[in-house]
């Protein structure tokens, strides 16, 4: 069997009192997109940079394409997009991409790659004069120009407008279709849901949930609403069919699971009305990764 693209087990990395990675484990496979999803400061960059060989773990094991992350051979096999920077400010976009391409034996055609990412008109523009979105796409191009087996993309769509975001998503999908293993970090749950085969939700340096997006969110629809904390759910439940579940998690966020027929909705709203409860964000839908994160941590993902 092919080795895993990345296998991280019990990774620990400390900075003084903070544990940026605190016993973190996950696996990533070729031909799949693995998304490390978590809020700012969760430890995503730390984890990715340990895999890239930039930083050393304090404990735990990390294997990249079956090797130690510091193995120089990996540098020909992986592509890297840093969270920021990495391109000389005076370099022109085309010039920089051609330089990076020249380090590889059989690179992609830099001009075609620029075209694909909508950068052809900016090929002679220096990096510091590119827009933020163009800078991001150039860094993305540089990560894939060497035809790597595995790419690490640290927040590839941060700060992009919707159009540029879609261009990036399409490129990631093409990489995956070509059998490349893609590891990306994001704090956009819609991005993880849309792109990832495997989502690894990270918080405070450890994995709080992982799996395919559908298994994390579940297939069942739910009734969700927000209202003042501490409603008497037992009383509400007694008015609902026996198999129904109601819970408050975190405080002020209510979820009702069961047979979501119209009568159930009517019962809930009638009960709220008779108790003088004003609901907000009342909706019936599948859980999102946002909801999963909220339930697991009691915090909003994008805070």
């Amino acid at each position, binding site marked *: 069997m092919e080795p895993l693209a990345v296998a991280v087990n019990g990774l620990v990395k400390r900075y003084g009192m903070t544990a940026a990675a605190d016993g973190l484990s996950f696996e990533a496979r070729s031909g799949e997109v693995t998304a490390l999803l978590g809020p700012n400061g969760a430890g995503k960059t730390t984890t990715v940079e340990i895999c890239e060989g930039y930083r050393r773990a304090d404990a735990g094991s990390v294997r990249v394409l079956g090797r130690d992350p510091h193995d120089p051979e990996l540098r020909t096999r992986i592509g890297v997009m840093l969270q920021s920077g990495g391109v000389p400010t005076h370099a022109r976009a085309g010039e920089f991409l051609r330089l990076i391409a020249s380090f590889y034996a059989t690179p992609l055609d830099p001009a075609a790659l620029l075209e694909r990412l909508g950068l052809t008109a900016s090929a002679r523009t220096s990096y510091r004069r590119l827009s933020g979105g163009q800078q991001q796409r150039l860094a993305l191009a540089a990560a894939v120009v060497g*035809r*790597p087996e595995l790419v690490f993309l640290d927040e590839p769509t941060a700060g992009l407008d919707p159009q540029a975001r879609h261009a990036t998503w399409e490129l990631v999908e093409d990489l995956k279709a070509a059998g490349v293993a893609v590891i990306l970090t994001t704090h956009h749950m819609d991005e993880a849901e849309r792109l990832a085969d495997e989502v690894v939700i990270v918080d405070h340096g450890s994995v709080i949930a992982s799996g395919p997006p559908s298994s994390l969110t579940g297939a069942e629809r739910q009734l969700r609403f927000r209202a003042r904390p501490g409603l008497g759910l037992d009383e509400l439940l007694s008015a609902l069919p026996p198999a129904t579940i109601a819970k408050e998690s975190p405080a002020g966020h209510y979820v009702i699971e069961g047979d979501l027929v119209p009568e159930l909705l009517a019962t809930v709203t009638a009960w709220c009305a008779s108790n003088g409860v004003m609901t907000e964000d009342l909706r019936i839908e599948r859980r999102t990764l946002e909801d999963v994160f909220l339930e697991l941590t009691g915090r909003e993902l994008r805070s």
Partner: protein
Amino acid sequence: MTDLTFSPSPGAAPRSRMIRAQTAYELRTLLRNGEQLLLILIIPVALLLLFSSAPLLDLGAGRRVDFLTPGVLALAVMSTAFTGQAIGTGFERRYGVLKRLGATPLPRSGLIIAKTLTVLAVEVLQALVICVVAAALGWSPHGNPGTVILLLLLGTAAFSGFGLLMAGTLRAEATLAAANLVYILLLALGGVIFPLTKFSGGVRSVLELLPISALADGLRQVLQHGAGFPARDLVILAVWAVLGLALAARFFSWE
């Protein structure tokens, strides 16, 4: 549009090709950079023109251009190997360029070789321009070209070592300020244009130990006076070179 296939095909280019590409890239961006051109070419040539044609200073016996040209050559080496390299590399480090290149097949040694080749290529260009201008001003050089090249190489090694040490340890803004300050101090105190004979004996014997003074004096001994082997200056430069390169190798941090 060309068909793009992302199917993996990993592999490094031959080392020589990587180094050639990196060197060509560094040279191109450097020669396009107005501030760098000012530093490495325009200032040295302007000083040569200004001080050799106008009797602003008493430069001792002999023609002014014969005194000035070796000093300006030394200044050119310092501006490229030390000031320009420190500032350029310092900002590359600050913007994560060195870090990013570390994730490509180009080895660190290859990057250092490319930077060294770039410095040497720029110095050849500087020397050509300075020699042509000096010749037009009536410069008549003496001595053994081999000794001149040895002095220039040792000076380059010494200044590169300290330039990289600064770039690899200080913040980029601090490097920018310090590299410019050192440049101006050494220009003023290193016998480049103002002869060290103007200083009193004690101060002078200290200033003579500076790398810029050793380089300028060594070049002057050979080019102006036809000396065979300026041993004292060569030893001073060698000591600075070993010290600078060893410190840079020990303390340079890539991120």
